[in-house]
């Protein structure tokens, strides 16, 4: 579709622009590292950032889950499966001899273990007491770039993400749907949803693209609340975006519920399906979410 190619063009142009700028100051210590720098990522968000700055990790917990939860950027082949993130396989880790392990505060409990195998760096994006994942991702991308000697590429990624936000926002203004309250949810079963609030990556993307998050109640430090579907009636949202995966019986069951059918966005026919986007991701996921928002929202004629 056109939006995609438009974005790709813009992205390429911006990256080229940033790269052509003369960069002040010497590159930090990272450049002293050996060329085949082997990084193990313990988190999908860190892994997608590493891929975007051109240094894919050599190993990752559960790479098979990538296609279900992240999709984009595509995972290069040959990445070693470490098992679960709570219990990465230490024998494999020892055999891989990585130069660096990157992890998150969520895995603080196993950090002392990881440090036995390679220098280990922690990058907080989702951590108590919560915050704004987009801004935290920018900071984490910068320090990750510095840690692996790819500061230029990290800055380029940050700029690409900003451009993607601006572009999606401009599209919403053109379509006349800016300032419209929107809900972003995952269906957990036929009665409950996980709804993404102001402390979530999705919430931050809505804010940066000029949309309004229809969920204003407090959420946990990952930025979501788990609620019964009836709670959605309290929201002023005029559109509901739900992300895959969703189990097959959910929509059929809901179609039979008078309460569901009474919700404003159901009556208006604005219940929109999105492919998977990593909800606990970093800048690449933010860009993907913005792109998906444009795809489903821009296309619809504005009414009301």
């Amino acid at each position, binding site marked *: 579709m056109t939006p995609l190619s438009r974005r790709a063009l813009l992205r390429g142009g911006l990256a080229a622009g940033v790269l052509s700028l003369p960069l002040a100051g010497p590159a930090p210590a990272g450049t002293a590292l050996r060329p085949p720098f082997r990084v193990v990522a313990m988190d999908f968000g860190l892994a997608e950032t590493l891929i975007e700055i051109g240094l894919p990790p050599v190993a990752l917990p559960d790479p098979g889950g990538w296609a279900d939860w992240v999709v984009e950027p595509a995972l290069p082949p040959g990445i070693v499966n470490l098992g679960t993130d709570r219990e990465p396989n230490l024998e494999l880790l020892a055999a891989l001899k990585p130069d660096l392990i990157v992890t998150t505060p969520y895995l603080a409990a196993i950090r002392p273990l990881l440090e036995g195998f390679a220098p280990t760096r922690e990058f907080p994006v989702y951590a108590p007491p919560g915050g704004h994942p987009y801004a935290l991702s920018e900071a984490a991308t910068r320090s990750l770039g510095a840690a692996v000697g790819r500061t230029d590429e990290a800055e380029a990624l940050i700029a690409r993400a900003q451009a993607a936000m601006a572009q999606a926002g401009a599209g919403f203004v053109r379509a006349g749907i800016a300032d419209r309250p929107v809900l972003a949810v995952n269906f957990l079963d036929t009665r409950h949803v996980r709804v993404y609030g102001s402390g979530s990556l999705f919430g931050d993307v809505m804010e940066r693209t000029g949309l309004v998050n229809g969920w204003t109640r407090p959420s946990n430090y990952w930025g979501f609340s788990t609620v019964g579907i*009836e709670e959605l009636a309290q929201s002023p949202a005029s559109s509901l975006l739900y992300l895959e995966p969703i189990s097959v019986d959910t929509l059929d069951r809901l179609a039979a519920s008078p309460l569901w059918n009474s919700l404003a966005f159901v009556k208006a026919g604005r219940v929109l399906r999105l492919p998977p986007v990593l909800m606990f991701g970093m800048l690449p996921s933010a860009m993907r979410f913005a792109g998906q928002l444009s795809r489903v929202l821009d296309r619809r004629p504005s009414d009301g």
Partner: protein
Amino acid sequence: MADITAAFAGAARPRLGPVLPVLLLAAPALAASLVNLSIQLPPERWWATLAGHGLDDTAVILALYSFAPRLVVSLLAGGALGLAGALLQQVLRNPIASPTTLGLEAGATLALAATLVGAPALVGLGREWVALGGGLLAIALVLALSRRSGFAPLVVILAGMVAGLACAALAALLALFNSHYLAGLFLWGAGSLSQQDWSAPAFLAPRLALAGLAAALLLRPLTLLGLDDGAARSLGLSLALARFAALAVAVALTAFVVAGVGSLGFIGLAAPVLARIGGARRVGARLLAAALIGAALLWLTDQMVQLLSGVTGAMLPTGAVTAMFGAPLLLWMVPRLRLPPQVGAGLVAHATGLVRPLPLLAGLALLLAVAALASAALGPGGGGWTLSGPADPVWALRAPRILAAMAGGTLLAVAGGILQRMTGNPMASSEVLGVSAGAACGLVVAMFAFDVVGRAGQTLAATLGALVALVGILALARASKGAPERVILAGVAIGALLDSLVSLLMASGDPRAVLLFNWMTGSTYGIDLSSATISLAAAGLALAALPLVARWLDILPLGGVSARAVGMPSFLSRSLLLALAALATAMATLLVGPLSFVGLIAPPLARLAGLRRPLAELIGAALLGSLIMVGADFIGRTIAFPWQLPAGLVACMIGAPAFLWLLTHKQAAP
């Protein structure tokens, strides 16, 4: 109602009897309902709504399709579970029997988990039917296993608990590897009552009415079932048939509730006990009272949950909250409860003949050593299976977890063996004592209230939790003069508290819950060599203490009178034994999590192998427990490489079928 007598020793009770607890629960429930409804829909609009005006307004739709069906579901499900629990307690002659004890809820949950992961299209047929199928399979297995004993009460419970544990372990395994997908399943397990239409009441009402009718028809045989086996048989009652019919009704009641709204097990335990305390003596009165109390209890809980989530904005699954306030209630009731005398029919382990303990124990020890060395040397790597010598760095990675597995297995087996000996009850085990649960509760509180995430902080918190549970259990043992049944009942209550805490956290979707869940499944991952060595030394100390207490274990099961007759201080010896079992459990919990299935299966395995004297039985159990855990650790490490299954879960998967097989093949009909 001449036979309604005081349930509390010495306390006179008004003639109101079991009506009193119903009123005490229903009055605040009604008040809370009115408050909740008026928050959603102002009272001045109630009449207009009833007259059929303004039906397309959002507030009215919420009241009609969310608030109202939810209230009706709470009444129906509570009543059904109360009745099911009362039926089970009557049939099994056991005051701690409940729908959960039959493995029914775990079976239903497993069926749902397996379907969601393996064949999501099947879910489209209806979640109710999947859950019902799983529950029925679990109960069919339990009944098939206990058929040879003529459905003797203790055998049914034992088979049910073990099958339930195995189902729960399998479901946990699925959840560990698919935590994102199964988020909804945790809600189901925690029993959220949230509704968006009338389909759940419409599903439940006709089915529960049929089951209730069947219960009424079963009144006379149920009364006779309360007598001992001989008396009932002499009155011409077919014991097996009557038990089967009553069990079937209780199962149907529970399965409908699990299928309709999810797991709300505590109601089925609390309501019949409250009915008995309220003074319902006759079977009919007790069944009715339990159903009414169950309905009122769930109604009250659910309305309080709604009030609370209106204030905090957070979603609380009602089932988890029920157990949360239900557990302290049970703890309060335990010292006041009159227990029927322990019924002897049931699991009497039949020794296969005289066995000389020493050669058998030496053989087991040798087997353990070989297994430990093999586990250290063998393992798959990036390029296939390899055999590595002690100099290989993988030994340094494997040795701590093997030692920890040995220590955990030993400690759990010793704790379980002591408890089973003391109580003469094969259901007793470390997790039943509640100390494992206490340790886990400590960890939960630290992780979620104080954001303690470091390993040292976690260890400290778990130790504190175990100690609090231990002191509480000991205080209770003192108050109840050390009567083992009461202590176990209290332990079950602490376990329910932990369950509710964890369910609550899982349902909140907080990703830290997955970390907790991981530890709860009994993982030996990531333990360092010094902690493993210290734990093994502690296990050695526990074994060394055994000869000092072995004589008590021989005498205590004979009863207080016999013990005093041979000059043994009954209270002191019981308390010391409890303390030893509790300490062993606390240490093991820190190593391999609170899923202490080994404590339940290792001692009976030792008895079935022919080790009959307490000391030989406990040492044999310790060796067997170690062996199971070492094997479990090895299998968990290698079977799904590079994925690792927690040793506690694998032990459960090995131990449960082995134990159930032994139960059916060694269990002669009475």
